[in-house]
């Protein structure tokens, strides 16, 4: 199944990536070929639906004998968030990596000191990460920029 450039553009928007029209066309072909290959999964088990299934059909996969340890279900990419930074006064120095017995309780413990963390930040101000304004104030944008508007591309963030 070849992907359309429209589909490529939509996926790119979800992944916070942007491509030139030439790259979109190339990706449509490459991804289409890979998707064709992984489509063999649809035929793998007897009784599997012959066509790419929607959720209802695929959920009829028979149970397997062993309790499967399913890999951690990853979340769809979402808009990155700025982590909360605790006040500096609460941050003791990072201890050496413990070789001691594992912690049994879910208790707070020291994390990376703020100044160490911010040393890698592209821009910081007064102990905070600095970014351009969230909403653009300029008007027209002639490039193929999928805007991260509220509601677009964030629909899988839960």
């Amino acid at each position, binding site marked *: 199944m070849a992907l359309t450039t429209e589909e490529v553009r939509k996926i790119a928007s979800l992944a916070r990536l942007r491509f030139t029209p030439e790259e979109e066309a190339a990706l449509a072909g490459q991804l289409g070929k890979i998707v064709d290959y992984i489509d063999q999964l649809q035929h793998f088990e007897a009784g599997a639906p012959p066509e790419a299934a929607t959720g209802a059909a695929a959920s009829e996969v028979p149970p397997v004998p062993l309790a499967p340890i*399913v890999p*951690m279900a990853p979340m769809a990419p979402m808009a990155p968030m700025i982590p909360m930074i605790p006040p500096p006064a609460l941050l003791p120095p990072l201890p050496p990596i413990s070789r001691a017995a594992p912690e049994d309780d879910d208790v707070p413990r020291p994390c990376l000191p703020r100044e160490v*963390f911010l040393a890698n930040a592209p821009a910081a101000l007064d102990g905070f990460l600095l970014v*351009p304004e969230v909403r653009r104030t300029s008007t027209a944008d002639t490039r193929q*920029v999928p805007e991260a508007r509220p509601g677009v591309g964030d629909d899988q963030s839960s």
Partner: protein
Amino acid sequence: MTSHPDLWELPAEELARRIRGGEVSAAAALASALERTARVEPLVHAYLEIFEEAARVRAGEIDRSVAAGKDPGPLAGVPVALKDNLNLAGHRLTCASRILEGYVAPYTATAVQRLLDAGAVIVGRANMDEFAMGSSCESSAYQETRNPWDVATVPGGSSGGPAAAVAAGSVALGIGSDTGGSVRQPAALCGVVGVKPTYGRVSRYGLVAFASSTDQVGPIARGVRDAALATQVIAGHDPMDSTCAERPVGDLLATIEEGIAGMRVGVVKEIDVVLAAQAAAAAATTPAAPAAPAVNPVGGEPAPGDMAASFRGALAALEEAGAELVEVSIPSLEAAIAVYYVIATSEASANLARFDGVRYGRRSPGAASLAEVYFDSRSEGFGAEVQRRIMLGTFTLSSGYYEAYYGKACAVLAQMRAELTAALGRADVVVTPTTPSAAFRLGEKVADPLAMYLSDVFTTPASLVGLPAVAVPSGLDGQGLPLSLQIMGRPFEEATVFRAARAFERQVGWQVAPRFRGAEVAAS
């Protein structure tokens, strides 16, 4: 300083023994390794950075420790190369990506800390496929690493830098990460030993995440004993990684020489079918490869039957060593690549969301809004293969496709887990070739991502199911390039896998002696 031109050739175990005993100094061992590196690095390009000064300081500390009557540990003074996705505090780390240009590790990975605690000397960060995504090291944003056996061929990937460094004699040990074969495949292509420990055996704290359900840190060495020693050093519980198991590691060297008389070795019966399908796929795609007109008359095209013949020879060697061969069946082997590339790219698309130009790494200088910071930094910072995998993973997780791809891949994975569990009930270990072919030529598969992915057909099952697996050299193909046997075992039974690997190594009598074909150098 006395020159010890042959110290670089010693196994890590022997080198550490001499240094602990005061026979040679860590400084001399490092000097030998650096001399050797200066000689081979212009041919191989294994390193992104050599920590020469820091390594000298460290070697001096080891020597002072020995002089003071202390024991620096089982890797005392052993030079080690790190894949560039393992944090070492105060040193740069890029994952061979532009998006991490300028990043300095703020802390040290647990596996690396354990190497340091055992006395190792970290000599540099070695090249890799960008974010560990690739099977040839060609997706590195910085340089192409060459295979020491033939510098016109790839070293494999993604841990191609550490594998090439170990094979070329620069260091006795390399530490890589293996998500779908990224330690075993380059070890196979470079004619050295590569280990993918059981999922949960080694902490991933401080390893940059790619696919969290399969990522594992593993060593590369010139022999099985060194590989077991390094695994022993880095393994064990770590509260900083909640997936790291609270199980004792034991002594992986205690039983390693006991041989495999009476051991049941499972032979996967679907291997010939998979090898034939791969050869057919290679024949179909080779004419389209851009490098096809420039076939090197010295290297030539790999003979598709080489691996099948080598594998039969490996089975005969195992039998001669006393193993009992039993046939096992893994029908899902054919689907391994499809399952892996759905699950791994799905997880990668989520894991790599953190590279956003906000918290660390490269920010696009022209970005005028927060959305542009995200889009521009990621589009400019990630290379083509990483973008392709993020796109594939975003697609397979997207609404309307999730059940058909991610859900289905998990169902087939459950079947694969059941098949391998059954196989490892009948057999103590299960063997396959590590790769479907020997090293391929630089550029040969760059234009065809799917052909590149197929390199991982035999390594992905152990990753997906979380089993320990060791790649051991099994001989040379018709072109003089190394081939490799993969030995998989039951979860946390590394000791059994190493015992089988060591018996096989002894039977084959393998010597790591790359010839640097295509480069004018005396490699001795």
